């Protein structure tokens, strides 16, 4: 078994999933933090479910939804699209399980921004979009960054839901956690140990990148002045 394929695939899946999680998580957090939403508790509860469910259950529900006999999968099949057993299924699984982490962090970060700043800008006639981009977002950035890092880490470690929906096909949908599972089941501890080591390295790189970004936000050096 090649250990390079699962590493590249895992990074690709986690990266794409994190971009999606970032956009959707931040967007939802903005809506829920600033507007009155009817049935808010219901939506937030639904959003949190993937965090409470065992990933296998999330995966099972996704499989039921996306399978050829499923509601969404049937429509996609008519359009000639197959999601189950492809790497996009792995992206969807990672996206769903990491979304609650991104959402919660973004919501807390946006809520912590003092409303007076936005109010002051509003009296000067600044548009809402510009207020969000230029005032709220920079102040909330550390919390959003933490949510993004958590989401990426969660996506990278995703196992149960991925196994269910993307399958465990070496070279195609076998991510690092699935490859470790297969190596252990097959008694190939050497491959398992290599992949384990790689996971540890990726985690430390992630921590280093987040630390660097945080330092830039809290203590912008001379170059940032």
């Amino acid at each position, binding site marked *: *078994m090649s250990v390079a394929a699962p590493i590249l695939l895992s990074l690709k899946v986690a990266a794409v999933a994190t971009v999606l999680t970032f956009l959707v998580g931040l967007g939802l957090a903005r809506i829920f933090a600033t507007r009155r939403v009817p049935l808010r508790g219901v939506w937030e509860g639904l959003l949190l479910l993937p965090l409470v469910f065992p990933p296998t259950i999330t995966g*099972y529900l996704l*499989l*039921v939804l996306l*399978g*050829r*006999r*499923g509601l969404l*999968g049937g429509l996609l099949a008519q359009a*000639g699209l*197959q999601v*189950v*057993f492809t790497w996009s299924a792995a992206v969807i699984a990672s996206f769903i399980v990491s979304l609650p982490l991104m959402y919660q962090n973004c919501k807390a970060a946006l809520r912590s921004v003092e409303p007076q700043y936005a109010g002051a800008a509003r009296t000067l006639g600044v548009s809402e979009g510009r207020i969000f981009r230029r005032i709220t977002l920079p102040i909330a950035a550390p919390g959003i960054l933490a949510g993004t890092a958590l989401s990426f880490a969660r996506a990278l470690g995703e196992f149960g839901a991925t*196994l*269910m929906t993307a*399958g*465990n*096909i*070496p070279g*195609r949908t076998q991510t690092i956690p699935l490859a470790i*599972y*297969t190596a*252990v*089941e*097959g*008694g*190939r*501890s*050497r491959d398992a140990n290599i992949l384990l080591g790689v996971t540890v390295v990726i985690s430390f790189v992630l921590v280093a990148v987040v630390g660097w970004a945080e330092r830039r936000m809290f203590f912008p050096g001379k170059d940032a002045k």
Partner: protein
Amino acid sequence: MKSRLAVLVLLLAVARFLPAAPEITLSAAASLTNVLQDLEAPAEAYCGARVLLNLGASGTLRRQIEEGAPVDVFFSAARLDMDQLQKKGLIVPQTRVDLLGNSLVLVGGPEARPVPGKGDLQALLQSASVLAIGDPEAVPAGRYAKEALSAWGLWDLVASKTARAASVREALQFVQSGSAPVGIVFKTDASSAVPAGSVKVLFSFPNEILSTPIVYPVAVVSATSNRAAAEKLVRFLRGDTARQAFLAAGFTVP
């Protein structure tokens, strides 16, 4: 930027219509991982198609087929899952074959002493602090272990001191790491333990004491989009090359 994106989308759209080499997906029980990976290249040559292996617990693989995942051939570690698919008409019954057999063994650490007979087995189980087995509710190896011990009236003796693992490999790991002095696993798991000699087979259970034999059935999935290649793959798995590999891995071929 926008034009580059447009080109990319166009390329992807075109790529979808290019003729690709035929592919067939074989969903196989995780315990078959090693032997099937060795057989991948000869199988592809025989079938004239790329063979994609999808590996997992038999129950998970069954669920995927039930939900319409694109699987062509199913190779299960238990009759139960295959029976359920057959009842729903999701496999082609004429293509179904009980391909492999396995047996149960009691394993211990490298310094443990083999058990010559049934009487000594009872004494050993009585003195052992823990017995590692797969969870009888979910893991086929655990279900068989419970059945074998019950048949000899030994289950009540050990039921309260079993460490129940989520897979047969985990049960083996309990013994390998010294967490459990003895465990019950399949013969093929014991012989593929790494490093070799980290566990010792202390006792082999005769297959006759089990009411349901340990077999690995294989069959073509009804929804296959390439029936000819799928049937070819099943023929390959029944052929001589595969047979040699299965025997070398410790399976029995009925």
